[in-house]
């Protein structure tokens, strides 16, 4: 420490921008005024909450739809993929779609049972048979 004992070396080796203190009190007052303004309600926190809820829903729904059936019965994976392949493909023509349905080998009873679950008017169903 000897070389630092020289009193000149005890000077703080920093400087500041010229005129720094000239407007400090005004800048502080501006900051205080800004600080004391009532905070505006931002939609960002609401949006964030919404996004969290949406993400949670997607996650829970995804787990329910994909992972749980696989854990319970792995054979469902095949059924799920077949159904998705038939229904979700955007480029399927009406003819191809009917052919694909035929390949599923559904009986009339299967179709009626499915449609009756869809809350469709019974008279309409019977007239279409």
């Amino acid at each position, binding site marked *: *420490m000897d*070389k*630092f004992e020289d009193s000149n*070396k*005890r*000077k*703080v*080796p*920093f*400087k*500041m*921008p010229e005129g*720094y*203190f000239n407007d*400090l*009190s005004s*800048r*502080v*007052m501006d*900051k*205080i005024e800004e*600080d004391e303004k009532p905070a505006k309600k931002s939609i960002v926190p609401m949006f964030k909450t919404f996004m969290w809820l949406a993400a949670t829903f997607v996650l829970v729904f995804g787990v329910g739809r994909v992972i749980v059936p696989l854990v319970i019965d792995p054979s469902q994976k095949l059924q799920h993929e077949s159904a998705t392949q038939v229904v979700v493909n955007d480029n399927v023509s009406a003819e191809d779609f009917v052919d694909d349905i035929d390949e599923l080998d559904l009986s009339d009873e299967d179709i009626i049972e499915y449609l009756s679950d869809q809350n469709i008017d019974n008279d309409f169903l019977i007239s279409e048979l």
Partner: protein
Amino acid sequence: MQDKEILELFGNPSTREKAFKLIVDNYQERLYWHIRKIVLSHDDTDDVLQNTFVKVWKGLKDFRWDAGLYTWMYRIATNEALNHLNDKKRRRFGGGDDVEDILLQNLEADEYFDGDEIQMQLQRAIAKLPHKQRIVFNMKYFDDMKYSDMAEILETSVGALKASYHHAVKKIEETLRLSEV
């Protein structure tokens, strides 16, 4: 004008702002240098000093003369400076950097450093000290402040401050000795 008179002005809403400007004018330079020695860079000091005065504005309404105005503001400035460094540490990659790293970066990057290589070595050695020892060392070594005044600001005993200063000097000497090898 004495602090007590200024505070009386501050108590009156019509002269509050005028009184506050007097306080800023009276103490800005001393508080600036106190903060600057803790955070090292001018830009960080500017932020901390403004925050300090904002806190002073908010706290003055409830100020009691348990401590002098200057002592009270010094405490606020010290806390603000340390909080600033800790916040900066937290914001960087989840707190991966030490405060020491932040201080060394501040030191190297500061365009307002105005010393020679020996003074830079000393500042690097001071940056390695724990917070309390660093503050005590700065107050004693650069400001030559009385231990009794320091004890009031830092709310600790004179004996503890002397011990802190002694440890700080030993550590700095060791750091400097190793850097010369």
